[in-house]
């Protein structure tokens, strides 16, 4: 049996080449760009989208899509901060509750996709609105501040070779490496690729397709919960307006990272690179003093190039 996940398609190198090219360019434009301090900042700026994108990648690998991720994350961050600050719950318990809520949303998404057989696009469009509304009602649209230190510790930094590195970015990279190994080296991980390639073929080989799908959505929900913890730690507040642009930003990161929207193909580390590319452009263009619309323009062009590369490599594979 061929294992498409193990083949490294040419498309998989695309994101790394784009990142290298952009970094080289910015390094020639600003002598501050390549400093450890600056690169560490870029990672901190993309860690929320980066961790959200892990969940999004898992879902896209099954040929689904999740429009609710940013809103579910915002709800998670309100649950955690409100429980800890206003209800006086122990911060660890509050974080656990946040993770349960976001995983619960994942479970709802997963059950609706499998049991009710609704397209993920529609299901998550619905839960996106529900999560947003619940967030606003629950928080009365008020920001929660004065957080206990336990909620922001993961945003703290340690010094390595003169560079301050945030624990949050370490968590992000560790999650990526862990999920990458899990996808490649374990049978549940391999099943995700198989289901994404062809649910029928997967079913015939005895893979419990529905269980795999529900599991993927719950795991994705867990990732959104972890992202909400990072978002809280980074900004120091629970923000009910968070997550609104992150929804589409995660899809941008996944697509830039070379994962196919048709499912079954892609390397999760690419999504990290995709998220970093967006951060590098935002940072580099600010250092150059270029208007932010240019960044939006470049992101748009890159997304289309990435999808084109995917299409072409699919044709080549046939």
């Amino acid at each position, binding site marked *: 049996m061929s294992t498409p996940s193990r083949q490294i398609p040419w498309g998989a190198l695309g994101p790394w080449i784009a990142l290298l090219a952009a970094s080289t360019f910015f390094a020639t434009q600003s002598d*501050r760009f390549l400093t450890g*301090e*600056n690169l560490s*900042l870029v990672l901190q700026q993309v860690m929320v989208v980066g961790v959200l994108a892990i969940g999004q990648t898992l879902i896209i690998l099954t040929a689904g899509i999740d429009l609710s991720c940013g809103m579910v994350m915002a709800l998670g961050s309100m649950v955690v901060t409100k429980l800890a600050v206003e209800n006086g719950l122990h911060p660890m318990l509050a974080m656990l509750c946040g993770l349960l809520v976001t995983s619960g949303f994942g479970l709802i998404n997963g059950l609706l996709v499998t049991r009710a057989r609704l397209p993920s696009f529609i299901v998550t469009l619905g839960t996106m609105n529900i999560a947003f509304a619940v967030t606003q009602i629950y928080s009365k*649209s008020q920001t929660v501040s004065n957080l206990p230190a336990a909620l922001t510790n993961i945003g703290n930094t340690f010094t390595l070779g003169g560079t301050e590195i945030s624990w949050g970015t370490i968590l992000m990279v560790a999650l990526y490496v862990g999920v990458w190994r899990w996808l490649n080296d374990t049978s549940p991980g391999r099943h995700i690729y198989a289901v994404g390639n062809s649910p029928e073929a997967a079913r015939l080989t005895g893979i419990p397709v529905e269980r795999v799908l529900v599991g993927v959505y719950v795991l994705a929900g867990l990732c959104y919960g972890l992202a909400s913890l990072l978002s809280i730690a980074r*900004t120091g*507040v629970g923000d009910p307006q968070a997550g609104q642009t992150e929804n589409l930003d995660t899809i941008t990161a996944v697509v830039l990272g070379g994962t196919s929207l048709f499912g079954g193909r892609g390397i999760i580390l690419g999504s990290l690179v995709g998220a970093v590319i967006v951060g590098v452009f935002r940072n580099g263009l*600010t*250092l150059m003093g270029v208007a*932010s619309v240019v960044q939006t323009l470049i992101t748009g062009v890159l997304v289309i190039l990435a999808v084109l590369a995917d299409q072409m490599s699919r044709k080549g594979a046939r």
Partner: protein
Amino acid sequence: MKLIARTLVLSAVTLAASAAFAQTQPVIGLITKTDTNPFFVKMKEGAEAEAKKAGAKLLTAAGKQDGDTAGQIAAIENMVSAGAKTILITSSGDAIIPTVKKVQAKGVQVIALDSPFDGADALFATDNYKAGVLIGQYAKAALGGRPAVIATLDLFPGHPVGAQRHNGFMKGFGLAAADAKSNELSKDASIVCMADSFGDAAKGQTGMENCLQKNPNINLVYTINEPAAAGAFNALKKAGKEKGVTIVSVDGGCQGIRDTAAGIITATSQQYPLKMASMGVAAGVEYAKTGKKASGYVDTGVTLIAGKALAGVDSKDTKVGTDLCWGNK
């Protein structure tokens, strides 16, 4: 049969009664950009209080997000068909103008609150340029002759309010800047970095981090609003540079005033959404009673609130700011 007949009669009576009531009670519609931003929540509260006092019926609606003009257009149409004779709107964009013209032709008065657009009968709003000038003057005094190394955390490209505050700030600081009509952000050599914050704390923080990378000697930060200012402070603090950097802002929300009292924000220009809304409702009641429309621009006022009073700059302290702030006290 009997039951159906009775129901029919009852509904007819109810309908007639409500129709008669509608004629005597002025109906006023309030449409905000969103219904989640505390600024608009406060505006709605102000309108509701005034409507209750004046015996008017208030309908409210909002776009789904800033920029959702389609949602606002639908709200205008729905409110007019529900009998509203005055629409108060914080425009999300010029796409609403054709619909506004259409309902004005039907005798509906349309008043712009907070955000100006062409064709409104009247505008009740903060003078955003002046709000910028005030914090610019304060910043000049705060630096006390030290050379300024400025970062601006603006709204997003092309928004008039963003340009007015930015250019007003420059003017107040004594730099050459475009006037209040311009939609473009002016530049100057002393402004070493400009980033878009979208009025959001997380994006403000990202913008400030990048600006500090560009120039670590920034000593003055202009921010479009207080969440952006809080984000900027977060970035400065993480870089160990929060001391000796002046952060000025605009809005005067209760959280922003608390941040000003805590020294996070040096000074902020406070605006008054509640007043915009209550004046709007009063104008709607007036129009229903006398048929006289409101017109022109009415400045709803702006006050400079500073943690520390400086010689030569007229400012109020944070206690005054707290009394007048919007949001949760």
